[in-house]
């Protein structure tokens, strides 16, 4: 047995070391695979970044209450009265004074100029109270200060600042007849709230002629337990509401780019067929250029299995090198790239591409697949090469 292994080892090393002799053909195979992997990972890192941004937004400790069937904050509407009733539901955490911790919020859409396209895009403007900040983890003012209730002042998320023009600190923005001043910039640790403009809830109500709210958020007394709220909604015929944890709400929205994952796999899968043709071409060429070498080894007593493994290994090495190269290209260009797209709430969601280790594995998997299939058939030929004919051809 050890004989076979040392044979294989010798042949594999010979093949790999002689790669520079077939430099251009080998590079062609490597590049072809690297492009396929780069394309795949670019799509996947886009979808993953979007998903992670939204999943990172929702908390298990917070429940979000919307009008039944509305499916997004924008479509929901709740009267002031409803908001008050909700705050009395069982299962809501209380502050030091024994009051329920909740936040009734408005959600309206305003225009912002997207830097990338210089066109108007839908930005969410949230009417919120400072108490509402406590219902989000990691809210911090990175520049300026918080808005003063009653003043036409807004604070903008870091994502908005990154992707949209005209929201820098101190800028004045007109929404309809009223002018708002940017008095602060806030961060929420990269979550989707950073794609929003925040202003005082009452001021938004007045300036946008709105009586009620869009949503009510409550802090749950027990993580993930919304049964108290649901029970109350079921028993009170005045309440036609949906209750879910914020984590569930945003997880659902994070699936919006799920189609991108499928499209990414289809496109790179089809492309992989093209680069498979390249790999096969390279490997058949390699086998025919090594015909004499293979025949010599066989004449020396090397098994045809070692010729098979040697060729297969060469192909796998090439494609894995290509795969790693492609992943690095994608990582270099895509990872951390900021972009913004239309989310489920009909507003822009700013997110960054994330090339995670799992995605890296996906890329290498695709490269390996090309390498194995692209090496198998040429390796088969190498193994079955009739020794005598190979020598004749060599002369």
């Amino acid at each position, binding site marked *: 047995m050890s004989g076979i292994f040392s044979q294989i080892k010798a042949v594999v090393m010979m093949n790999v070391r002689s790669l520079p002799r077939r430099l*251009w*053909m080998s*590079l*062609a195979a490597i*590049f*072809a695979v690297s*492009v*396929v992997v*780069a*394309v795949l990972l*670019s799509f996947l890192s886009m979808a993953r970044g979007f998903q992670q941004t939204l999943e990172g937004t929702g908390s298990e400790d917070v429940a979000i209450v919307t*009008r*039944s*069937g*509305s*499916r*997004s904050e*924008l*479509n929901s*509407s709740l009267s002031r009265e409803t908001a008050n009733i909700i705050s009395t539901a069982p299962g809501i955490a209380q502050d030091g004074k024994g009051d329920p911790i909740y936040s009734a919020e408005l959600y*309206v*859409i*305003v*225009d912002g100029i*997207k830097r*990338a*396209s210089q*066109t*108007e*895009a*839908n930005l969410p403007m949230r009417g919120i109270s400072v108490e509402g900040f406590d219902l989000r983890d990691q809210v911090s003012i990175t520049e300026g200060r918080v808005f003063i209730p009653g003043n036409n002042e807004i604070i903008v998320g870091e994502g908005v600042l990154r992707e949209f023009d005209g929201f820098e600190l101190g800028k004045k923005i007109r*929404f*309809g*007849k009223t002018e708002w001043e940017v008095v602060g910039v806030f961060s929420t640790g990269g979550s989707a709230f950073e794609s929003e403009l925040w202003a005082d809830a009452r001021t938004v109500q007045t300036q*946008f*002629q709105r009586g009620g709210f869009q949503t009510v958020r409550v802090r749950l007394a027990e993580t993930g337990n919304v049964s108290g709220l649901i029970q109350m909604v079921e028993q009170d015929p005045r309440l*036609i509401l949906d209750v879910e944890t914020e984590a569930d709400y945003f997880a659902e929205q994070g699936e919006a780019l799920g189609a991108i994952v499928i499209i990414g796999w289809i*496109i790179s899968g*089809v*492309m992989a*067929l*093209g*680069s498979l*043709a*390249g790999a*096969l*071409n390279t490997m*058949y*060429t390699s086998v025919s250029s090594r015909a004499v070498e293979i025949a010599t080894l066989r004449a020396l007593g090397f098994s045809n299995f070692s010729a098979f493994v040697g060729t297969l290994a060469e192909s796998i090495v090439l494609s894995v090198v290509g795969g790693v190269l492609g992943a690095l290209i994608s990582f270099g260009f895509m990872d951390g790239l900021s*972009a*913004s*797209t*239309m989310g489920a709430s*009909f507003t*822009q969601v700013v997110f960054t591409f994330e090339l995670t280790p799992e995605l890296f594995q996906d890329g290498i998997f695709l490269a390996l697949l090309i390498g194995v299939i692209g090496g198998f058939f040429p390796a088969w030929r190498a193994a079955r090469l009739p020794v005598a004919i190979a020598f004749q051809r060599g002369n």
Partner: protein
Amino acid sequence: MSDLFLIYKNLTRKPLRLFLTVFATFIAFLIYGTITGFQNALDSGVELSADDRLVTVNKINFTQPLPISYVNKVKAIEGVQGVVHMNWFGGYYQDPSQFLQTFAVDEKAFLEVYDEITLTEEETKAWLQNNQAIIVGDTSAEKYGWKVGDRIPVGSNIFSQADGSSVWDFDIVGIYKGRDRQTDTTSVYIHYKYFNETQSFGGNYIGWMGVRTVDPKLNEQVIKRIDDMFVNSPFETETVPEKAFQKAFIAQIGNIGLILTSVVAAAFFIILVIVGNSMVLSVRERTAEIGVMKTLGFRSGRIFRLVLGESVLLALVGGGLGIFASLFAMAAINQSPTPLPDMLLDSAAVQTAFAYAAILGLVTGIIPAISALRLNIITALTRA
């Protein structure tokens, strides 16, 4: 021996290599064709926009409302031929996840301003007479198996009726067709009056207005007149040509054009590398032969053309097959119920594809062709 025969013989010398390089080219052009078709479908909303149509929305954002009183004021503006107001209904069919693009419109003006929506005379009459009427596009009708005469429930994820129900029943009085193959026929339309009387939010608000001008040349003046009229009111307007509105809407999704172009560039890069290398190799293998041909009196220019002809022919065959296959792929995708308009490749796009194939053939063949051109007989024969 004709050159074409020589090219053919050279190409088919190694059938496996020929197959692999043609296949790689085929894949790249299949991707190119399909993506171009997709882009075409995506752009159709912009391309099919009427030049004489404007969209007037609330200046804050198009989701903010406008008072209905604006409609008559805009109608009275010089240069305006017709105005239709529209409201987003937030519709769904059967299940909230089964999104149905529903607009509540001024039933009469709608057909005048959006004349790409075609109904039979009988259907038009029924649409105008029945206030609970709904007209549905043939794509949606086919998807859900609707027929004229059906009464269907349409839910709203925004509005509700006085009794708290958020589902309305409507009579299908017409299944409209699009004037163009790519006209949107997934949307459904209902009467604004009926909607506004039955929804419980109250208020006489509209979403936006579609404005038809007498002549596209007057667009700019009309835009200015409309927006000036409402300046400093609580509801300022922003009027833009329909084309610009559609473009901005698609740009909200992201720079899809850049993504698609990058994918195509990547696909072309792959074949450039694979086919280019393959050509270099196959000419190098023929060094001795080229030496013999030159000895026999073949001119260098002719040999140059033979090699280049070989690579161009290869690219054209592979590219042609790929484009042909992409037509089938698109036909299959168009058959399935997607929210996207039909994907199409017009003859100009096919011509561009062949031009790309020819360029690709020239680029991949140029290096080996030059080396064949320069090849010295003595070196060629000794190297062999």
